[in-house]
């Protein structure tokens, strides 16, 4: 059996007295989409930031593709692509210039057009980030995270604040990236998103992982425990109505 691409063991991180992450352990297998769910303040982002070498942590071990994050952060940075929760980009360069520049930071020459195609922004090559809609910005941010052809792509709440069409568009992009053999680790607080995208999810609360399984398994377990929804489940939700009325296609432009 191949080793997991990401191995997190007993990770703990404190901010002063506040324990943000409390002994978290999980493995992410190659070519899976792994979701970290949880309410705000559960420790999702902190966990990601520890893995991304952005934060020092007190205890535990993180191995990315066998490389220890604490021992060799530079090597880890070369193997990961990161979309931060609220990252912006230089505003005086256009998208294709930005991607080339980011490529140079990894000493790589990138094919900006191909990367933009990957996230369906090829017609925006000459635009600046400030001219993009929310969904386009997030997709561009993913393209920028792909410049180094990373082994693992980290997406921190990629769809927060997007409208239903833009969210679905971004899901499509994530599926495509996964189908090309990349591993994706994402955080979200949309359960439908996790259900649709993730092969496995870890549910975090108060800095601990309280459940970790494929979404269907978690649902089955709950049902077999005798759980019943109070309201009768309709075959369609209000979101389906909204999408039916306004159309599935994007209208960001």
């Amino acid at each position, binding site marked *: 059996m191949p080793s997991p691409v990401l191995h997190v063991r007993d990770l703990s991180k404190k901010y002063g007295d506040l324990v943000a992450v409390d002994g978290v352990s999980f493995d992410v297998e190659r070519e899976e989409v792994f979701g970290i769910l949880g309410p705000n303040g559960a420790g999702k982002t902190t966990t990601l930031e520890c893995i*991304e*070498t*952005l934060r020092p942590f007190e205890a535990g071990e993180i191995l990315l593709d066998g490389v220890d994050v604490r021992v060799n952060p*530079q090597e880890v*940075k*070369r193997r*990961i692509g*990161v979309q*931060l929760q*609220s*990252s*912006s*980009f*230089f505003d*005086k*360069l256009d998208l294709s*210039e930005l991607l080339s*520049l*980011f490529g*140079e*930071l*990894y*000493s790589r020459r990138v094919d900006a057009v191909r990367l933009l195609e990957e996230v369906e922004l090829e017609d925006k090559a000459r635009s600046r980030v400030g001219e993009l809609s929310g969904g386009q910005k997030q997709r561009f941010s993913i393209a*920028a995270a792909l410049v*180094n052809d990373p082994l693992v792509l980290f997406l921190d709440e990629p769809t927060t604040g997007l409208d239903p069409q833009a969210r679905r568009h971004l899901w499509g992009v994530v599926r495509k990236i996964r189908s090309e053999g990349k591993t994706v680790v994402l955080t979200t607080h949309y359960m439908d998103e996790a259900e649709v995208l993730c092969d496995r999810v870890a549910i975090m609360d108060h800095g601990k992982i309280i459940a970790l399984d494929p979404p269907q398994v978690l649902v089955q377990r709950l049902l077999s425990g005798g759980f019943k929804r109070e309201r009768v489940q309709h075959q369609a939700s209000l979101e389906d109505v909204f999408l039916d009325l306004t159309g599935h296609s994007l209208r960001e432009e």
Partner: protein
Amino acid sequence: MRVKWMLTLASFKMFFRQREAIIWSFILPLFIVSIFAFVRFDSLGRIRLGIVDESGGRSADLLNALEQVETFRTDLGSRETELEELERGERDLVLVISGSVPGDDSNSVLVYTNEEKVQETQIGVLVLQRCLDERLLQRTPLAGRIIVRAQPVKSRNLTYIDFLLPGVLSMSIMQMGIFGVAFSFVSLKKRGILRRLSVTPISPADFIVAQVATRVAVLMLQIALMVAAGMLFMHFHFEGNLLSMFLIGVLGAVVFLSVGFAIAGVSKSEDQVAPLANIITLPLLFLSGIFFDRSSLPVFLQRITDFSPLTHIADAMRAVAIDGASLLDVGPQLLGLVIWGILACLVAVKLFRWE
């Protein structure tokens, strides 16, 4: 190395796509200088007469008489220094009283005149003539008329522009270092751009090197452009070496870029940058002899501002630009800048933070 180069290129590109940056670093300094190009503070006042007395004290009464003349502001000096002043445009006329005293044992006198100050020299020669004539009238027997021989000299008539232009250049070095760096870094920090860069394999040093290199390049452009515009359109008397100007500019930039990074380090937002930057730059601006000569300051302020880094830049630039001073001549200023540069770098390293 390649990363640094690419980052520098990119940040150069970004710099020139910023309209405000262009205005601040190129248009505004030129604008300030050109406003003053048309103001002549030195056009009024008395005619500046230099007197060279080589008669060995025999013409003391003549000197006295000339000092009494309202029209003249007289200066006494050796032939060498007075002619030098005339060449620099500090005198309109220089009267030479050689071994023979006019009226006593000679009937002619030599006056060097500033070629460009036609009006002043004409009046000056007339007044001088009258003085000498009056002096003769008081004696008997009449020794005949004294002829004033005028000898025109080509002078560099230094004007306020020659003082102001190097000063404004020094000012822009300070402004670019402090405001340019502090504002743009705090903004990069606040918008999460620095954070995004920190998950890529580049080191902070790469990024800072690129930022500094961009600004140093812009600075050299600024110096070259201002000097050229000054010479072409404003009669700026540039006698110096452009490379020396560059070197002074770079040393000055190191000081003020470091101050900029230090301010960026302690500020969380642009709102905090502005007061800090102003507290540092405004006093320096008015006390370091940028717009006005420091000799008009109270003496204790002069002694204090002797040590200002901006004084060092302005004095060194002026000496090189106007007097054609060599780097050796401005050694004290360069040394001062190096010391300030080291201090400022240490403070910047201590205070600068990525997050």
